[in-house]
């Protein structure tokens, strides 16, 4: 029978629009407007999934985003999504969902054996396994990971599109229930830019499922009127199906809008979800409250749900989830649900743990034949896959004992209500402080942050008329602060809500048949299977702080962040320690408010848009000529240029030999370049670099090391004086931005009177580095300046035309070979490169990549900052004391060279390493030791920073930072490899080729 629990009329569903969907492979029919939960309940499906730890059958507890139990796997294949709350999923034609956390099926689940082994899985079980021998943990981890966990993540890439939107508004109203609508209305009427966000498919909240009357309109119709007015304002934006996830400083909030999730088809035009980043001048929180479950024995069976949720299924979805109904309550308000159910033909029994039931209530219950058991408690429940029967007994409140005779009542639905908890999660995220409200017995907002208000139930006010008026006033007040005002006041005269919520005690737990401390199943946190007994145990074992209890028992640590469980857990702790709840404190709520897709946070920043890519003017040539690329920061640099069947080693050996024997060409455009101008540049460089700059002539280049104030090397490069007051600085590729900021920092914060202007020109110049014995002969035919040995010595710069293009030619070298760096404006870069390739054929001009560049420079012992240095290395440590001026009074880092630590003689120093077997290329990062032991720990004396096979030397070479290395030339050290093999190597000088530097001066 289909839709057997559906009532004939009423609710916000469209009975003319039937929708087919599948749950656990079985076909069902629901209606337009249903959630998966309401449609399943309509078809009398209560068993939705299995619980996390004990694999107990679980059903539907709530009707909203706070749902801890009814989590399902939604969709198939690449679009499958785990842990989706059935209470929030709107059904659509063809929807497929399934239970999770069970195998082989939800009806028969092997993992449920945990239920009977619960004494073996107490609170803190996970932590306790850590304390056993570590080898055992590996065994348990395997088992735990298989048995636990919720749904399954998709194994293939999600094909959907996610968008992001930045939004600025005057007033953001979070929550579209009675209070939120009123605040938005006042702000909207005042002409403020209003953003109203509601997580449901349509605003209205509680007004959609109650029998309240506002000025003679039923609450549903009244809500529609208000919405109509709001929608008529251009300055009001309403977002449905949107949840505010994070609330950060200065009213910065993030929200997730589900754009097409509820549609049966995929749209090319619309994203699946949209992530909003909102900055609001004012924020009004109007999120309402969550009903509090009661903690009684066996309170987790399918068919046990919150009273308010049941009322929603009845009034909003036209579903009567049960016909023999028990309501277990401690407050008046829940009676409204009981009466609604009785009016729809259900047989209702009320179990109320209070002694005195107001006569008004009992009279009304009598009229609809509801039997009430005052001073009674449900002490046990029965029914494995769905509730069948409860046991109730009278409670002697004074002595907290069961008294009188035990009674059994058959039923197919149990409703519970333990009062209401204002939804303070977002408020708490915003750093608002909470206080304990003694009538509600829950936390409400206390100290608001700036430009924020909390209204309605969210603020602990449950009186409908007051809520409407105060919330409207809140909107008006904010509008006034923004210099706007409404010309309309709120016209509401009466708002009548049958049985308003006023107060409720908080019950730590309901006395049960079994003692609560002895493995009873009084569930506090449904999602994480935390029972009252677990909380008792945590206290006994000394986890008394609320933060410790939370982590030890994992209560409130599920994907619902304990929306239904936190206050009950605190009440239980308060009971155990006999302290008021306010003294127990509460844990901190953190974003996101609800689970959210990572895809939405990533938005369009995926694949090639994940990080910006920087490409040189020559990039396309590199691509066309088969370069393998390497990422250097955001730059795409050719790593090597393989020919035919070459592997990286073949290619690099060939490229290096070309440079040493004839002519190589490197695209060095990524080098950081900074244009420095002003009368004080020389003075400035004297402070920035370790060496002296005052005497550098126009047209000359100088290599410099930069240190930070700690005396540690942080960048290097060549700087050239272009004209009297103009210098061209180069930096490492990765350090360009850092150096630029470093220069600006000192110019703007320390030496404000210096006239120096820095401009990044990295992208303005293409740099072609030609290197090799034939480079001069080659270039002389293309340049219109005299580049002969006599006219153009090492470390000079000339301006002239190269291939007819204005160029700066630098006579500098990073390979040790005769080299020129030709800088041309980037727009001519590719042209000049092509000309070079054409005219260089004669010399077999060979493009080389970063790998060959590294090998060539290592053969010469040239460092790479960031590879051979790591932020803890001074110029002296890398044997570059020659570049540190002894005459300059001051420069950045100088004073630190004489600190006790930098003076130490056993500091790590840069040396060469030659493996004794002449063939092993040491892995970079390898540890260097004097004495190798069979296993760690070993005393480390240093590490290998650069290591390559050198085609020029025809054996491996390495650079290494070794303690006192400069005084240990010729010593043999040991390098233990991951494989267990130990390699012997000899400490040598760090220059492996052309020590006297003759080739450079050819």
């Amino acid at each position, binding site marked *: 029978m289909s839709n057997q629990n559906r009532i004939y009329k009423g609710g916000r569903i469209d009975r003319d629009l039937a929708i087919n969907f599948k749950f656990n492979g079985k076909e069902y029919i629901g209606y337009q407007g249903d959630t998966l939960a309401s449609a399943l309940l309509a078809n009398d499906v209560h068993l939705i999934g299995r619980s996390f730890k004990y694999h107990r059958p679980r059903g539907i507890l709530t009707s909203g985003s706070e749902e801890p139990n009814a989590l399902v796997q939604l969709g198939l294949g690449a679009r499958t999504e785990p842990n989706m709350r059935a209470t929030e999923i709107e059904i659509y034609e063809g929807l497929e969902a399934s239970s999770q956390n069970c195998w082989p099926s939800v009806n028969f689940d092997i993992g449920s054996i945990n239920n009977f082994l619960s004494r073996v899985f107490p609170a803190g079980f996970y932590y306790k396994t850590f304390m056993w021998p570590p080898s055992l943990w590996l065994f348990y981890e395997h088992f735990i990971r298989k048995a636990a966990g919720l749904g399954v993540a998709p194994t293939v890439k999600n094909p959907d599109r996610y968008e992001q939107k930045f939004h600025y508004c005057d007033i953001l109203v979070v929550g579209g229930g009675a209070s939120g609508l009123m605040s938005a209305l006042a702000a909207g009427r005042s002409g403020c830019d209003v953003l109203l966000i509601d997580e449901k498919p349509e605003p209205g909240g509680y007004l959609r499922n109650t029998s309240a009357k506002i000025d003679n309109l039923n609450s549903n119709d009244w809500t529609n009127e208000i919405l109509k007015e709001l929608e008529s304002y251009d300055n009001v934006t309403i977002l449905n199906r949107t949840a505010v996830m994070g609330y*950060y400083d*200065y009213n*910065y909030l993030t929200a997730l809008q589900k754009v097409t999730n509820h549609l049966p088809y995929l749209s090319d035009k619309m994203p699946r979800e949209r992530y909003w980043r909102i*900055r609001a001048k004012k924020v009004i929180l109007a999120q309402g409250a969550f009903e509090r479950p009661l903690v009684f024995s066996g309170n987790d069976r399918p068919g046990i749900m919150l009273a308010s949720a049941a009322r929603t299924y009845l009034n909003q979805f036209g579903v009567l989830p049960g016909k023999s109904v028990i309501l277990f309550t401690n407050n008046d308000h829940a009676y409204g649900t009981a009466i609604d159910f009785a009016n729809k033909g259900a047989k209702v029994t009320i179990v109320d743990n209070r002694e005195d039931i107001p006569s008004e209530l009992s009279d009304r219950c009598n009229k609809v034949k509801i039997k009430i058991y005052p001073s009674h408690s449900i002490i046990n429940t029965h029914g494995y896959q769905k509730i069948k029967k409860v046991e109730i007994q009278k409670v002697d409140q004074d002595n907290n004992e069961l008294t009188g005779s035990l009674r059994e009542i058959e039923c197919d639905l149990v409703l519970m209500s333990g009062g209401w908890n204002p939804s303070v999660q977002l408020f708490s995220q915003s750093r608002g402080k909470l206080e304990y409200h003694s009538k509600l017995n829950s936390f409400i907002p206390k100290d608001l942050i700036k430009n924020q208000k909390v209204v309605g139930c969210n603020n602990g006010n449950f009186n409908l008329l007051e809520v409407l008026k105060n919330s409207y006033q809140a909107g008006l007040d904010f509008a006034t602060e923004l210099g706007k005002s409404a010309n309309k006041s709120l016209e509401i005269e009466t708002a009548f809500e049958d049985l308003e919520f006023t107060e409720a005690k908080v019950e730590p737990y309901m006395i049960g048949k079994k003692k609560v401390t002895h493995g009873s199943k009084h569930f506090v946190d449904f999602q994480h299977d935390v029972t009252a007994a677990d909380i008792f145990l945590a206290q006994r074992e000394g986890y008394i702080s609320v933060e410790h209890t939370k982590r030890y028992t994992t209560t409130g640590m599920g994907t619902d962040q304990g929306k239904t469980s936190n206050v009950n857990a605190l009440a239980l702790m308060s009971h155990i320690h006999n302290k008021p709840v306010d003294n127990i404190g509460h844990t901190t709520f953190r974003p996101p408010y609800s689970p959210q897709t990572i895809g939405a946070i990533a938005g369009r920043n995926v694949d090639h848009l994940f990080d910006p890519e920087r490409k040189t003017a020559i990039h396309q040539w590199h691509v066309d000529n088969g370069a393998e690329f390497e990422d250097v920061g955001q730059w795409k640099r050719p790593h090597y240029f393989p020919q035919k069947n070459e592997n990286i080693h073949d290619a690099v050996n060939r490229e290096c030999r070309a440079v040493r024997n004839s002519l190589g060409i490197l695209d060095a455009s990524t080098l950081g370049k900074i244009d420095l101008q002003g009368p004080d540049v020389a003075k400035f460089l004297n402070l920035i670099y370790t060496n002296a700059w005052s005497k550098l002539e126009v047209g000359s280049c100088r290599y410099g090391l930069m240190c930070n104030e700690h005396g540690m090397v942080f960048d290097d490069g060549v700087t050239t004086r272009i004209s009297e007051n103009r210098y061209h600085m180069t930096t490492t590729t990765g350090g360009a931005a850092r150096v630029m900021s470093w220069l*600006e*920092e000192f110019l703007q*914060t320390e030496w*404000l009177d210096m006239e120096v202007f820095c401009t990044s020109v990295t992208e303005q110049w293409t740099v072609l580095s030609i290197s090799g014995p034939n480079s001069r002969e080659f270039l002389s035919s293309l340049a219109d300046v005299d580049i002969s040995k006599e006219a153009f010595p090492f470390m000079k710069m000339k301006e002239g035309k190269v291939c007819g293009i204005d160029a700066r030619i630098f006579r500098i070298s990073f390979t040790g070979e005769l080299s020129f760096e030709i800088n041309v404006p980037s727009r001519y870069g590719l042209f000049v490169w092509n000309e070079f390739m054409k005219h260089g054929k004669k010399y077999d001009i060979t493009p080389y990549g970063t790998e060959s560049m590294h090998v060539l420079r290592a053969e010469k012992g040239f460092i790479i900052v960031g590879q051979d240095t790591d932020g803890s290395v001074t110029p002296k440590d890398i044997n570059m004391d020659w570049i540190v001026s002894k005459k300059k009074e001051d420069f950045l880092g*100088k*004073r630190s060279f004489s600190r006790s630590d930098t003076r130490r003689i056993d500091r790590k120093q840069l040396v060469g390493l030659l493996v004794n077997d002449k063939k092993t290329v040491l892995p970079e990062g390898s540890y260097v030791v004097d004495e190798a032991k069979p296993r760690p720990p070993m005393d480390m004396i240093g590490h290998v920073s650069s290591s390559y096979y050198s085609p020029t030397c025809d054996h491996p070479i390495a650079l290494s930072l070794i303690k006192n290395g400069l005084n240990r030339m010729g010593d043999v050290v040991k390098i233990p490899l991951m494989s267990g093999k130990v390699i012997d190597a000899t400490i040598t000088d760090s220059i492996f080729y052309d020590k006297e530097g003759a080739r450079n001066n050819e």
Partner: protein
Amino acid sequence: MFVIKCPYCGERDQTEFSCHGEAHIARPENPETLTDEEWGEYLFIRSNKKGIHYERWTHDHGCRRWFNVMRDTVSDEILATYKMGEEKPKS
């Protein structure tokens, strides 16, 4: 995430800025004359205030200027921003 009023550009989102720690720590005039302890004080010792804190920020993705911020580290409220070289506002 803060909204920071750059003294040159006006109010902008925090993502445009970066923070560079405590402000008003002048680089010593003659580092060479300092003892190791005095130099160490300049290099390493910061006040780590609970309450009113003066710190340096840059408007990286804007005017690239450095300026100072007076912030309450408890509430994260920014009480003032002012240009380099200007007197620090009284708390």
